[in-house]
Structures are given as structure tokens and as C-alpha cells.
């Protein structure tokens, strides 16, 4: 072959089977609760049965006398160590173990350390807590009423339940747009509280050595490095003496981002007893105390001209953050990225206001694959567009196609300031409509309506912003959201990539190996990926908000390119040519115009570790490090169509078809990308039709087990129909965007729009999620339910 190589001869992208699966299918995964250490003790937490009460006394004597109990820790114990309160990820504090009051049902009060799991739980029943009950604040819409009980009297001078007011967009311009509109439609809607409920609950094993001062924590953590720094700050331990190991994680979805009281209790338990202490919550503890998601009471308004040109959007949101503001998002954004709520449409002006309030419910807010509240934003705009279509008598697809941003508008700065990196929206919607055969579906629907059958067709189009983030804009408690990566190529050309992000099922061990292999002309089998251990990986902020591929994935590509550039210099010495005479073929460095003279990475690695004379200024060996600070978010998008059949007699909804066309830029491993989309679609089914964490008027949690908090099974989920378009990100090193949360963000409005489309003959405009049979039936009767509160 003599002609010059003009394109890479090598790709490592593609549907490579996952490396992780070899251990998982054999039952040889290594999850935190699988780990047993010699002499290990077990912890259990006593929790409040009440939503709001003053603690009069805690009597632990009987528990301490239990023959198998080694320690009983209360808030008083922690106060002596200045650990009774811990910082949250939203500049608030949260009680580790309650000292003054309990503020939600399930709040942590005491921690028992015993010889085994069962004894620890036995001893909880021997602790006697005397309470003085206080009236709870359950309904967020009443949290700011004058005279509402003040939940956070621990905060100096606090006399109400207000947390923050926040706004984005141009109010005057939005008001002007609305004033000039032919049509304005408004709607109240609730995105109810849900819980990510990974199948593995949260837990930790803490092992503190007084002799070495070393603390090792095995934990279900999506962000081990951030946890290490936070522990160092909280505990006053030197950070280099703290090691966080996140082994295999049984799903995260945002549930495993924060530090929970149980982790700190396990650490203190180990410090007190001198033994490793394991703490694992049960399912009820998981659902009732760890971070919830959503709980946004929203009012949306959309303005348009009579021909269906959308010109303005407004939203007012009341955000229920629970008893402590433990919402986990970049510090400058108290409402997360909600203000991307103009979605995928070319409109003139937008303005949103968000008010956060305390209630007597568990803390959290940002969790569950929401891309920092983009879930709520997309739901709002996609419901509003459907309501506008209804008002105008336009087809919902036609209205969207008319208003979608056009490809030539990218990069596009939306009215609230986000710069969307790339997109071809009409193409994605058209692909989805083609897969669905949209005109045929509408024909079928019309026929069925004639026969009194209720079939719905719902659309949604979403734009995400993922990959937090540019560090000048985005930090978690002051830690900038940039990710490190290091790459070592061994003498025989086998490589080890170390990354700071943490897989919880996303397949990083495979995908990231593909990224490096692609850059270096290797096979993915030649690259091992190390993650989940702060002693073995460079610093970074972890995996959530779909940031792994946009940030750590970019770091992997950049560090591989650094190695490739170093390899070039070594190759030039090997081939005795100037580096300027070399070109990368995709597999090897070769002499321009003489491709027979070439060296691949394995040959170069051996030489780099060998005796060859290297050019001045070139160190031996073949490795590199990098820190990737993303210049912008990436903006994946997609078009979803959901077909439902609704039984008006029972209110039962059956999802017949679900078409999802996702554009997440370049797909490194399409098999894994599709798996990510499948999972998110199932989440959408759960949220739209089944899942809600509701409360009764006393603040009792009504979603405290899987018998009450219903998750989708094989029976509710259809066989997904996927499509893809590829619009590379212009600023990401390999053009990839995140995809982990796209379907969770995009699918709920498609399902809700579909059900409401089915109910159109009944004159139903809106109903709040989850659209359970009871909710749908009630809506058909012309009434509505508050899904977040028990019906009195």
C-alpha cells in the first residue's frame, strides 16, 4: 500500500461485550455488603417514628447492657466529637443523630454497634426515647403560611420554613412577550416526590486504626473522592490517611451521592470500638431517609401567536426540600439546572422563579437520574406544549416541529443563558415519527375513538445539559467539577487507565477501555480501567448527572492522546526520523510517505522502557496524567413517542409501544448506550404511572417499602423501540455527550401526554403523576387527586 492514509484504520468503538459481566454472571461481584473483615461488628440505627417532635430524653442503659452490644452512640456522643451535625451539599447542615428535635419520620436518633446484625437490631428495641410531639408541616404549599410550625429552629433566628428564592431569565422581556401573545395557556402541575431505589441499599464498612491513624471506608458511594475530602473536613483527619473504596455498586441513580448519617456513625463506631463496623440500611430505611427526588409544585404558562409560534414561557415553582436542605447540585444553582426549562424550542423570552421550603419529610431533592432538575424542566415544557396544542387545535407533533430549534441555530444560547452545543432536532423528531408511523397511529386512534376505545399518542422532545461542569461555574462545596485521569502503558503495550468516576452499572470498565484503545490503536482487552478507590485513582467528582463520559470520558481521551504524543517522540528515535515526519495511522506512528516504516504502541512502549537513547527532554516509560475541565456542558437530546391504551372502566393504562430516538453524540459502545436508554425508559414508566412517596397528614411516609412504593416490572414495560441520530458535540474530545439520564428525563412527559391524549374525549386537560388506575379513573370523573398526600 503506497497511497497515504487519510483516515484511521482502527476503531475500538462498537458494541463490545462488557468486561464486567464475567464476574457478575458468576455471582462473583464484590458489593459492599459482600465484604467481611476479621472481627467486624455490625451497626443499626434507631429512627424516629414521628415526623416532628422534641426529644425529651433518650435512655440507652438497657441497650448497653445487651450481652452482644459493644457501643451505643447518640447525638450526645457525637456532640463531644463535634459530629452531631454535618454539612449538606447545599450549604445547610443536617443532624447526624438528633439532639434537639426529630424533623422527619425515619430520622436517625441512635446507633448501636453489636456483634452481629440481628443483635444490633434487637438492641434498638431496648432504647427508650421520650418525645414531645409537635405539629408537622406536610403539605409544601402550606409551609410558608403565617403560623406554620418552624421546623429549623436550630438555625439562629429562623422563624419560617423558607430556604431560598431563585430566578432566571428576563422577567420584563417575558412579560412583554406574554402581553403580545394571541394565546396564553397556564397549568398547575406536580412532579411528585419519588425515590431512586437502587436495588442495593446504602451502606458502609468503616475501619479505623488508632495506631496508624488510617481510616478505610468501603461504601456505596458514587463520589469516593468527594467523600474523602468531606470526611477529612468533618472528622479533622488528614486526608492522606483516609481511603474510600467503592467496590461494585448495585445501582446508584443519584441515591449514593451524599454522605449519610449511617456512614459517619459507622466511622465513629469503629473509632470507639477499635474494630471494623459495617452498617447497611434495610429497604424501608433507604426509602424513608435517604435522598428523595423531585417534589416540585409547578405553575407553567406558555404564550404563542395564533399560528402556533411559541414566544414565551414562564414557571413558578415551589420546591419541597424536606427537613434539611440536602439537595445535591453545583453550589451556584439552588434549583439545579431547572432554568433550562425552555427546552428544545425557539422562543423569545422566558422567566422562572423557584422558592425552596422546608417540610417535615426526608431531605434530598436532586437524585434519581434527573440531571440536576432537568427532569422537572422537561416535564413542565413538554406538558405546556401539549396543552398549547390542545388550545390551538393543532397536532402535537406539528406544533413541536414548527417550534423546534433549527440545526443552523447551533451553538444556541437559550433565553436563560445556556449555550446548547449542537443539535439537529427536526431530524430526530422525524426519525421517531417514521419509526412510529405517526400518521397511521393517528388514523388508528380516530377509528378507535369511533368505537369508544381510548388510545393515546404522546410525544416529548427533550434537551439535556450534562457533564458538569466548567469549574468556574460549577462546584460541589467548593470542589470544582473537573476530573483527573492517569494512564500507564506497561512495557508490553498493555495499559491501565485510572479514573475518578465510579461505575454503578454503566459499564465504564468497558467503555473507557474502548476510548483509550481507540486513541492508541490497541484492543479494549489490552486496557484495564481502575476506579472506585481513592488510593488508586486521581481526584475527581464522581458519577452522577450523566457526567462520566462528558468529563471523565474526555479525560480518558485526552490522557491517551498525551501518551500518543509521547509515543511519537519515542517512535521518532526508534525510526531515526524527525517527529514532524511521522503521522498517526490509527494503529501506529508511521513515516509520512513510507508507511512500511512504522511502530505501534506495544513496540514503542517496550522501547520507552528499554535501553534506546531517547531525545533530550524525553523521560523514559510511557504514561501521562491529565485533569479535564469541560469548557461547557454537552447537550444530548431526543424525541420520544408513547402509545397507550386506557381502560376507562378501571383507569388502567397499558403502554403498548414506546419509541425513543436519542442523540447523545458519538456512541462509543452502542450496546451500552441502548441499555442506558432502556433503563431510563423503565424509570419513566415508574414515575409516570406508579411511583410516588406520599405522606399522610401526620407526616407518616406511605412509600416505605416495595409493597407500597411500586416499581415497574416486566409486565408494565413494553419492548422498547429505539432509534438514533448522531450529532457530535463540537467541544468534547471525541464528540460524545452523556446518556445515562436522557431517557429518565425525556420519557415521563411522553407517557403522561399519551394518557391525557387518550382521555381527551372526556375533556381531561391534566392529571398529576403517577397516573395510577385510581388517578386516571378519578380524572375521568372530572376530579383530581393530590398524589403526594393521603386522601383524608
Amino acid at each position: 500500500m503506497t497511497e497515504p492514509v487519510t483516515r484511521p484504520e482502527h476503531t475500538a468503538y462498537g458494541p463490545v461485550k462488557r468486561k464486567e459481566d464475567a464476574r457478575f454472571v458468576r455471582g462473583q461481584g464484590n458489593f459492599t455488603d459482600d465484604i467481611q473483615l476479621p472481627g467486624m461488628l455490625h451497626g443499626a440505627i434507631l429512627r424516629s417514628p414521628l415526623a416532628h417532635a422534641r426529644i425529651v430524653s433518650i435512655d440507652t442503659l438497657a441497650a448497653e447492657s445487651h450481652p452482644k452490644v459493644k457501643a451505643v452512640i447518640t447525638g450526645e456522643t457525637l456532640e463531644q466529637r463535634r459530629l452531631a451535625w454535618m454539612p449538606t451539599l447545599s450549604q445547610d447542615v443536617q443532624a447526624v443523630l438528633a439532639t434537639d428535635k426529630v424533623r422527619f419520620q425515619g430520622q436517625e436518633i441512635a446507633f448501636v454497634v453489636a456483634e452481629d446484625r440481628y443483635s444490633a437490631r434487637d438492641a434498638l428495641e431496648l432504647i427508650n426515647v421520650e418525645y414531645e410531639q409537635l405539629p408537622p408541616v406536610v403539605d409544601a404549599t402550606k409551609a410558608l403560611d403565617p403560623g406554620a410550625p418552624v421546623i429549623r429552629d436550630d438555625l439562629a433566628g429562623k422563624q419560617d420554613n423558607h430556604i431560598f428564592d431563585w430566578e432566571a431569565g428576563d422577567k420584563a422581556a417575558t412579560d412583554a412577550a406574554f402581553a403580545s401573545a394571541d394565546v396564553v395557556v397556564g397549568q398547575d402541575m406536580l412532579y411528585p416526590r419519588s425515590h431512586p431505589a437502587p436495588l442495593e441499599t446504602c451502606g458502609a464498612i468503616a475501619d479505623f486504626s488508632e495506631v496508624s491513624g488510617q481510616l478505610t471506608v468501603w461504601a456505596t458511594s458514587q463520589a469516593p473522592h468527594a467523600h474523602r475530602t468531606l470526611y477529612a473536613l468533618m472528622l479533622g483527619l488528614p486526608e492522606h490517611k483516609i481511603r474510600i473504596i467503592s467496590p461494585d455498586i448495585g445501582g446508584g441513580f443519584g441515591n449514593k451521592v451524599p454522605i449519610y448519617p449511617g456512614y459517619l456513625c459507622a466511622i465513629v463506631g469503629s473509632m470507639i470500638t477499635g474494630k471494623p463496623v459495617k452498617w447497611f440500611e434495610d429497604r424501608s430505611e433507604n426509602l424513608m431517609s435517604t435522598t428523595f427526588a423531585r417534589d416540585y409544585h409547578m405553575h407553567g404558562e406558555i404564550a404563542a401567536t395564533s399560528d402556533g409560534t411559541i414566544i414565551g414561557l414562564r414557571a413558578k415553582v415551589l420546591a419541597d426540600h424536606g427537613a434539611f436542605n440536602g439537595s445535591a447540585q453545583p453550589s451556584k444553582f439552588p434549583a439545579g439546572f431547572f432554568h433550562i426549562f425552555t427546552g428544545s424550542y425557539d422562543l423569545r423570552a422566558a422567566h422562572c422563579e423557584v422558592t425552596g421550603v422546608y417540610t417535615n419529610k426526608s431531605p434530598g431533592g436532586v437524585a434519581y437520574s434527573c440531571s440536576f432538575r432537568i427532569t422537572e424542566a422537561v416535564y413542565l415544557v413538554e406538558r405546556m406544549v401539549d396543552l398549547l396544542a390542545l388550545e390551538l387545535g393543532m397536532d402535537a407533533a406539528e406544533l413541536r416541529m414548527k417550534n423546534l430549534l433549527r440545526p443552523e441555530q447551533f451553538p444556541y444560547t437559550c433565553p436563560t443563558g445556556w449555550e446548547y452545543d449542537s443539535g439537529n432536532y427536526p431530524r430526530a423528531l422525524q426519525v421517531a415519527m417514521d419509526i412510529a408511523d405517526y400518521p397511521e397511529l393517528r388514523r388508528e386512534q380516530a377509528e378507535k375513538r369511533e368505537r369508544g376505545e381510548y388510545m393515546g399518542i404522546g410525544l416529548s422532545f427533550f434537551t439535556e445539559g450534562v457533564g458538569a461542569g466548567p469549574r468556574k461555574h460549577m462546584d460541589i462545596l467548593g470542589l470544582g467539577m473537573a476530573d483527573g485521569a492517569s494512564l500507564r502503558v506497561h512495557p508490553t503495550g498493555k495499559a491501565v487507565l485510572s479514573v475518578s468516576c465510579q461505575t454503578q452499572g454503566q459499564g465504564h470498565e468497558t467503555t473507557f477501555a474502548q476510548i483509550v484503545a481507540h486513541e492508541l490503536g490497541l484492543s479494549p482487552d489490552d486496557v484495564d480501567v481502575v476506579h472506585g478507590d481513592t488510593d488508586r485513582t486521581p481526584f475527581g467528582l464522581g458519577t452522577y448527572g450523566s457526567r462520566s463520559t462528558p468529563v471523565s470520558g474526555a479525560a480518558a481521551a485526552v490522557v491517551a492522546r498525551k501518551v500518543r504524543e509521547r509515543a511519537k517522540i519515542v517512535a521518532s528515535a526508534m525510526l531515526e526520523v524527525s517527529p514532524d515526519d511521522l503521522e498517526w495511522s490509527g494503529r501506529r506512528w508511521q513515516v509520512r510517505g513510507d508507511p512500511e516504516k512504522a511502530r505501534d504502541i506495544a513496540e514503542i512502549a517496550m522501547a520507552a522502557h528499554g535501553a534506546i537513547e531517547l531525545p533530550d527532554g524525553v523521560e523514559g516509560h510511557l504514561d501521562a496524567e491529565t485533569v479535564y475541565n469541560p469548557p461547557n456542558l454537552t447537550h444530548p437530546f431526543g424525541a420520544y413517542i408513547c402509545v397507550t391504551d386506557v381502560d376507562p372502566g378501571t383507569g388502567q393504562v397499558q403502554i403498548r409501544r414506546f419509541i425513543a430516538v436519542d442523540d447523545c453524540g458519538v456512541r462509543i459502545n452502542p450496546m451500552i448506550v441502548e441499555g442506558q436508554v432502556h433503563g431510563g425508559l423503565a424509570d419513566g414508566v415508574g414515575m409516570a404511572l406508579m411511583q410516588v412517596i406520599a405522606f399522610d397528614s401526620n407526616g407518616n411516609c406511605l412509600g416505605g417499602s416495595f409493597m407500597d412504593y411500586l416499581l415497574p416490572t416486566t409486565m408494565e414495560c413494553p419492548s422498547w423501540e429505539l432509534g438514533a441520530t448522531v450529532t457530535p458535540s463540537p467541544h468534547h474530545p471525541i464528540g460524545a455527550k452523556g446518556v445515562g439520564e436522557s431517557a429518565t428525563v425525556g420519557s415521563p412527559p411522553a407517557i403522561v401526554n399519551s394518557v391525557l391524549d387518550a382521555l381527551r374525549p372526556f375533556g381531561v386537560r391534566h392529571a398529576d403523576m403517577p397516573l395510577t388506575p385510581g388517578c386516571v379513573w378519578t380524572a375521568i370523573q372530572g376530579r383530581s387527586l393530590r398524589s403526594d398526600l393521603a386522601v383524608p
Partner: protein
Amino acid sequence: MQITVNVNGADYSRDVEARLLLIHFLRDDLGLTGSHWGCDTSNCGACVVWLDDTPVKSCTVLAAMADGRKVRTVEDLAMKGAGEAGGGRLDPIQQGFAECHGLQCGFCTPGMMMTARWLLDRIPDPSPEEIREALSGQICRCTGYENIVRSVLWASKHTGGSVASAEADE
């Protein structure tokens, strides 16, 4: 109390508390951590093992109830003695899950595979609907189920097990 349970072909005699759950007996006493615990209420199926050839949710079975009976867990799925490196040749259901991306975090996978193996032993060529019905009492939070169904279908069509023979079939 003293119990003797045959787990994956070997007898284990242990002195246990009467209240000890089978899942904790398997995981904590025998160190068989392939079976997982997920909910306590028989809803999720992460703990599914076979008790005398029938899938059970071992979080709601007492270890004492397994006394004198046979238990089979995920650790027993791979065929023994096939001589292949890496711990024996995989059962087709294990291969199916790896081939079809039927798992992500891997936490529900052992339970799913145990039920699927049981299904295939009774209905060698199940329809997607029969697979969904069989797995309907178990929860996966990652995959949206589609690839699990495909994994079981794959296994039903590749009964010989190995990928090589599977490809030869096609």
C-alpha cells in the same frame, strides 16, 4: 438449632438461630455472596435461589426451613469440570446475559438467572410473554427488562452453551 442444608451439592451443618433468614445463612454463614438482599418483603427477587428445585425468595425463608433440603444458588450455575479456564463453562443463561447486555449493575442478575434457568428447564422454548410472566416478581432497576428477555431467549436458542457452538448453530 442444628441444621444441615445441602447447598450446591455439598452438605453444610451449622448451629443457627431459629429466626435466621436463608439469605443471611447463605451470605454470612456460608460466604455465598452471589445471592443478594434487596427488599425484605419478597418484592424484588434479588435473593432468589432454588429450594428443592423451586425458586424461592430467600429473604422470606428461614434457614431452618431448608434443613434437610437442597439449595441451589448462582454459584452452581456454571457447569463444573468442563476444564475451561476461568471457572468452568458457563450455563447458557449466564452466556445469554453477557451476550445480550442483560445486566448493568449486576445486583438483580443472580436472582433473574436462577428463575430463568428454572423456566428454561420446564419450557425450553418460551415466548417473550412467558419469559416476562416468569420474571414478573423480580425487579431490575437498570435494564428496563428488554435485554433480560432477549438474554433468556438467547439461552433458549443456544442450549449447547458455548458461544462457539451457538455460532455454529446459526
